[in-house]
């Protein structure tokens, strides 16, 4: 412990100069942890028209998909964003062909199978999951409207060849999707829970999987 305390002043200059850009963007990570509620399927029963109901349900589910915990890794370019303000990832990361980062700086260089606590920093933890990776280019969501995201999500040529039934399962059971509600200290979670989100996707599918305009 004593050695560690002495090590800190030695590197203070390194910390203060080299990573000052990164530290600046960390400030925006001072965040809440409760994403609030997600409407449940029954909240949409009053909408008589099935197509309109389907669209409204997707709109509600999209509050999860467009939350920073999800959309940060569905970027418009092949570089992820991070934080509540969706700033470019520090260090700059490229997905490379694998979507796991280039050899030498892969996602797992920093991100482990679970969130890792960080002591004594404004950044409270490093997020992690065993499937940590960037979404494929075909699943880029940033910059799209909710309707465009919807059409992409159900397009088998762009969604990893998933059927609507596969989508319900993916949204409800995939543990990288589920990580969003357990994002580690210092990070907000999307509204609702993975269960309420999956129930909305299920109801969207059973009402015809209609997309908002």
């Amino acid at each position, binding site marked *: 412990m004593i050695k560690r305390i002495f090590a800190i002043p030695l590197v203070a200059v*390194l*910390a203060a100069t080299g990573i000052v850009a990164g530290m600046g963007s960390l400030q925006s990570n001072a965040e809440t942890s409760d994403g609030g509620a997600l409407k449940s399927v029954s909240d949409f029963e009053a909408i008589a028209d099935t197509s309109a109901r389907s669209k409204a349900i997707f709109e509600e589910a999209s509050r999860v998909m467009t939350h920073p915990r999800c959309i940060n890794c569905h970027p418009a370019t092949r570089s992820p964003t991070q934080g509540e303000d969706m700033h470019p990832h520090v*260090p700059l*990361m490229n997905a490379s062909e694998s979507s796991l980062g280039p*050899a*030498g*700086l892969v996602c797992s260089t*920093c991100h*482990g199978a679970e969130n890792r606590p*960080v002591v004594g920093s404004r950044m409270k933890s490093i997020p992690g999951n065993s499937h940590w990776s960037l979404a494929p280019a075909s699943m880029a969501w940033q910059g799209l409207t909710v309707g465009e995201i919807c059409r992409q999500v159900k397009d088998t040529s762009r969604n990893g060849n998933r059927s609507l039934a596969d989508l319900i399962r993916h949204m409800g059971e995939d543990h990288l999707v589920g990580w969003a509600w357990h994002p580690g200290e210092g990070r907000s979670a999307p509204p609702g829970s993975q269960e309420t989100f999956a129930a909305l996707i299920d109801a969207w599918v059973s009402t015809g999987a209609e997309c908002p305009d």
Partner: protein
Amino acid sequence: MTYDLLVNGKKYVVDVDGDIPLLWVLRDTIGLTGTKFGCGIAMCGACTVQVDGVPVRSCVVPVAEAAAKPITTIEAIGETAEGARVQKAWLDIDVVQCGYCQSGQIMSATAFLAANPSPTDEDIDAVMAGNICRCGTYPRIRAAIKLAAAGR
């Protein structure tokens, strides 16, 4: 709790908490001080070591996760073919200025060259962007990686 660590081909039995970062076990418990502490939050790369050949930031890897896997640090990277080439190129180009970031630079560069033996400038920048150098040795790092790649 005790953990068996395999560092640079040598077995160490350490009695530490499982969530202590690997960096501090390497430096304080085992006494391998070539690996440096820069930021402690996976932002600078100074603490890079290789676990199973993959570069990781030892300041955020809990020791329990690294136990029983082969760990390579700067002290032994020169014993690998890529590591030896990288170290020679580093000397030939005279990359180092203050040196603080350099063990991390060499650990990243070595893993990178092992996976990508003929990198372009873009490839080099994409990977080495993760290792910060206060002294700004980036152009020399890039030149040395190209020299090491050419010296295959």
